[in-house]
């Protein structure tokens, strides 16, 4: 995958799934995906991560839900790590 492709894919996905993301020029790394950030509810969060798995051909991206509060940066950096592949 080309450099920056994961970032672009994630940001496109967020814009398509989070109405609050559409109005923003930038989606900074520290922006939360849930309440207080992009406002995705529990079901939308799961669907977003499952979609990441499908589009990028990765496994257990949804496992990120068990960790700290998800941010744009956290998601992108996880998708970039070789262990996710």
């Amino acid at each position: 995958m080309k450099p920056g492709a994961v970032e672009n894919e994630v940001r496109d996905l967020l814009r398509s799934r989070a109405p609050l993301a559409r109005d923003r020029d930038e989606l900074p790394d520290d922006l939360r995906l849930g309440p207080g950030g992009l406002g995705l509810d529990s079901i939308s969060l799961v669907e977003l991560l499952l979609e990441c798995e499908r589009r990028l051909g990765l496994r257990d991206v949804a496992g990120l839900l068990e960790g700290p509060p998800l941010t744009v940066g956290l998601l992108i950096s996880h998708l970039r790590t070789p262990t996710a592949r």
Partner: protein
Amino acid sequence: MSWPRRIFDALEGGLAPLAGRWPRLAFTSAAAAGRLRNRLSRRWPSPEQVQALFPGLEPGAAARVAWRIGGLEARNRLLIDRIRRQGLDPVRPLIQTPEDFRALRPPLVLGFFHVGAVQALSPAVERLPGPVLILRQGLLSTPRPPVRVESTEGDGQRRAAVFRRALAHLAEGGFVVVALDVVPGPGFRVPFLERSIELARGPFALARIAGAPVQPLAARWRGGGVEILTGPALAVEAAPEPKVQEAALAGEAARWLERYLLESPAEMGLGLLRSLLGFAPDGGS
């Protein structure tokens, strides 16, 4: 506190030790005391409240339904007291599960409402033929393994993590048991008894994403015991929008509950009755 209320509270308190030795007798007696309590107080529910929800009932029939709801509530109070004191062991022998319940096959989402003897569902689902995951906000007592319980309390990400584990459980060929009328996250407001009821989106989204059917589940008192029953798998036409499909399933679930309660109005618990009539929880005695 009024003296009749003190007398009935004392009577129910006296049934608690009896329930340890002769549970069926204690639960039958609690039902009789609860009916009498309602008949004398004409409160929670009053016949008029019952008639407001079931306008097809004549005043006399509405009064009888109100008495029986009084009996249901008294039995449930005693059941909760038993479970708190002794866990599920004394409750298990009271549960009757029909053949069609034991013949259910996973993956399956079993959705229940807060009607009837809802606290008796935990020991009942131990008899399902497969691993069971119960999603609950609170739980009086933990059922036996292989039944697992996950709390749906917490923030959005914590609920999302539970949702993901429930998806994995269904994918591995399990049952998920979940309340349809408790809405910790997103929900749908759907028509119900000429009013509306809010149902959780989670169970329907779970079924859609996992490709598993949703089937209603209920428990009802039969004398001193509890009978478990299931409704048919909810079926709706496929919709292009996932949320539309889920809302249609929620509407179908509400229609099942409506049919069930029109047939057996005395299965309606006070919590649902209060919420339908617009009262705050704990608004009565």
